[in-house]
């Protein structure tokens, strides 16, 4: 029987949806005879996040580790605390987000094992599928160390449901761990709160080099607003300076799995396709009917995006109005 510890990702008192996806992965581990799934919340003040974690379906309990040093998620500070919790578990999981990618390998090294990066599928408690070569190859790997440390590819798992009123116990863990002071948080840039977060949005509108300027991206922002979508971009558009890099979708940017992905003026380089493979519906609008993006698009429309995108926006707005939707 496996015992799984999930490291919660959170910020500003909110549990990141990636944690609920780790719970789904952990439940797949439990399929061969049941397992205990615990969530660890490391924070300066853990109560709000712990309550959200405790509502996730399928878990056994929430462990809180409260220290002022845990106010910001610094891997060098968090890792030794997780190592102190680890002996009670067969698996330690974190999300394959920048939070988990930063933290979990440090945990794994301290525990003397390599990490399984980006679990896509759980085949057994020690066998997993994971992507390599930018998802152009899938490998089956087997972990043989004394503990499995892994990151969970969030695009591959549905979030576990939250249940109200059925919360599990929340226990404070008391750890005697000396923490390093060699790494200090300085600042974080403001995120655009007006739009959904690209990593977790249900709808994403992305633009490519064909937009031809930063100004032209405005037609895309207007369509995104009409759809309630996040905005993304290809690496080519980022490299051309049209949008900042945190909007980049692809192998070297964000790997996302929205319900609806609109690729506008994106030719579809392998590295971009890697980032959108798990989207449920992919729509491509491009003037080049031979562009590789059409090989993966569920719905393709060949034409001039400067004409078609405003048309689409108008139609979406008219439809929303007709249906009395907000």
């Amino acid at each position, binding site marked *: 029987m496996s015992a799984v510890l999930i490291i919660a990702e959170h910020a500003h008192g909110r549990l990141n949806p990636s944690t609920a996806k780790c719970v789904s992965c952990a439940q797949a581990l439990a399929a061969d005879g049941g397992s205990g799934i615990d969530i660890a919340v490391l924070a300066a003040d853990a109560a709000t996040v712990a309550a959200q974690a405790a509502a996730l379906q399928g878990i056994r309990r929430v462990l809180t580790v409260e220290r002022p040093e845990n106010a910001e998620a610094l891997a060098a500070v968090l*890792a030794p605390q997780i190592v102190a919790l680890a002996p009670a578990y067969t698996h330690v999981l974190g999300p394959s987000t920048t939070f988990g990618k930063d933290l979990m390998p440090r945990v794994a090294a301290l525990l003397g094992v390599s990490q399984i*990066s980006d679990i896509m599928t759980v085949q057994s408690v020690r066998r997993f599928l994971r992507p390599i070569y930018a998802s152009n*190859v899938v490998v089956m790997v087997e972990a043989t160390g004394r503990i499995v440390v892994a990151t969970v590819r969030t695009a591959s798992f549905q979030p576990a449901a939250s249940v109200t009123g059925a919360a599990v116990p929340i226990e404070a863990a008391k750890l005697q761990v000396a923490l390093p002071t*060699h790494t200090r948080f300085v600042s974080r840039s403001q995120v655009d709160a007006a739009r959904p977060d690209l990593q977790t949005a249900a709808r994403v509108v992305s633009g490519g080099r064909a937009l031809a300027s930063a100004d032209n991206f405005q037609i895309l922002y207007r369509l995104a607003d009409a759809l309630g979508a996040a905005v993304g971009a290809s690496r080519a558009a980022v490299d051309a300076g049209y949008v900042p890099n945190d909007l980049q979708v692809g192998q070297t940017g964000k790997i996302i799995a929205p319900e609806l992905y609109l690729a506008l003026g994106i030719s579809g380089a392998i590295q971009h396709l890697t980032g959108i493979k798990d989207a449920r519906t992919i729509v491509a609008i491009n003037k080049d009917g031979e562009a590789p993006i059409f090989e993966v698009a569920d719905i393709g429309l060949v034409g001039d995006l400067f004409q078609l995108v405003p048309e689409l926006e108008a139609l979406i707005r008219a439809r929303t109005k007709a249906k009395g939707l907000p």
Partner: protein
Amino acid sequence: MMSGVKRILVGIKRVIDFSVRVRVKPDGSGVVTDGVKMSINPFDEIALEEALRIRERGLADEIIAVGIGPAEAQQQLRTALAMGADRAVLVQIEQPLEPLAIAQVLFKLVQQHEPQLVILGKQAIDDDNGQTGQMLAALWDRPQATFASRLELDGAKARVTREVDAGLETIEVDLPAVVTTDLRLNEPRYVKLPDIMKAKKKPLELTTPAALGVTLPAASVHTLKFEPPPVRARGVRVASVAELVAALEQRGVL
């Protein structure tokens, strides 16, 4: 203790070039590498470029490019020397090593060379593990600054801006430290022909894990099978925006 010379150690991995469409061998034992173009891992090129810029600002004296891999990896180290690294070390090993073993070899080199900074790519574009830098920092018990898009040295400290999912985060770390590079950190320079000639005279040391005194750990992750990814079903073409909206409604995504 740190020596008087300010040194930067940079990791250089030999990988299949990013532009190659990688194919799985029919028997699922690996990917096709025969006749395939090999290059420096793009994130490692960025790591080396950053080290070169730090040296050009007078903040480092020596840059050592380190490779761990087969004899052929000397080609990529020669390219690193042509870009401007002062010397190179290849820790020769034929079979692929997992990240923890790579980190242990790097740690040994760190103990030997006492760099003030180790700059590595955030991941290699072949196995996409993204573990080595963090693991080296853990074994070394030093700071890590991963996914760096800006790096400023200030005496015994470094200020690093990191590309995180929510935007940008800035941290301050004491040196020595491990930094891993993201794409926006810089744009690597092109190698010029005279530099390639000059690089032939620069020292490239060959060693092995055993010669370094590293006992490699037992593998903890075994790759059993390689497969091509699942393919998406072919989609439909529509002729107008109205048809597009209708198709989206039919799929229940609007």
